[in-house]
């Protein structure tokens, strides 16, 4: 699974001032990988916290515990 290039392009264009701004395929690929790494990092850190609490469900509490250091 991963972020489709067209989706990444659409997300980037939300923030571009000039709609005609073009993004190369490589840049889209890199941005898709960055987003994927961010999601997996948040997910796995949540899993590690749930495992430390000996629970098999990663709920919002486990995510909130790792959130401050994740966003840093």
């Amino acid at each position: 699974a991963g972020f489709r290039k067209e989706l990444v392009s659409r997300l980037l264009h939300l923030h571009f001032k000039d709609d005609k701004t073009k993004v190369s395929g490589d840049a889209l690929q890199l941005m898709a990988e960055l987003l994927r790494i961010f999601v997996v990092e948040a997910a796995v850190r949540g899993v590690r916290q749930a495992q430390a609490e000996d629970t098999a469900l990663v709920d919002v509490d486990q995510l909130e515990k790792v959130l401050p250091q994740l966003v840093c």
Partner: protein
Amino acid sequence: KDWFLSEEEFKLWNRLYRLRNSDKIKEITLPRVHFPSLQEEENGPIQKPTTGIHELSLGEWRVWQDHPFPTHQVDHSERCHHFVSVMQMIERMRHEEGESNYELEMKSYLQMEDVS
């Protein structure tokens, strides 16, 4: 083909991931950063807590932030290590009585010509 979900993907999303009004938490929002030093308009409207909308908290588990949590593929940044060290200092100060050790230590180095 394009950025939006196909019929099939939309059905899966709707069944597996979509938060419903019937769910206890039907929406998740991120905390709005509020700088008291800035004027109201610069800060934007303060979100009032609404039932069913869970605002993710960066402070709920602040007492836990005095040690670095395990990482996966991305190590902690310098900024994160600094954050943890400040949280450790706050934790230490929380247990102090009377004058702060930090203050006593700094006083011993202070040269008034450095600051006047």
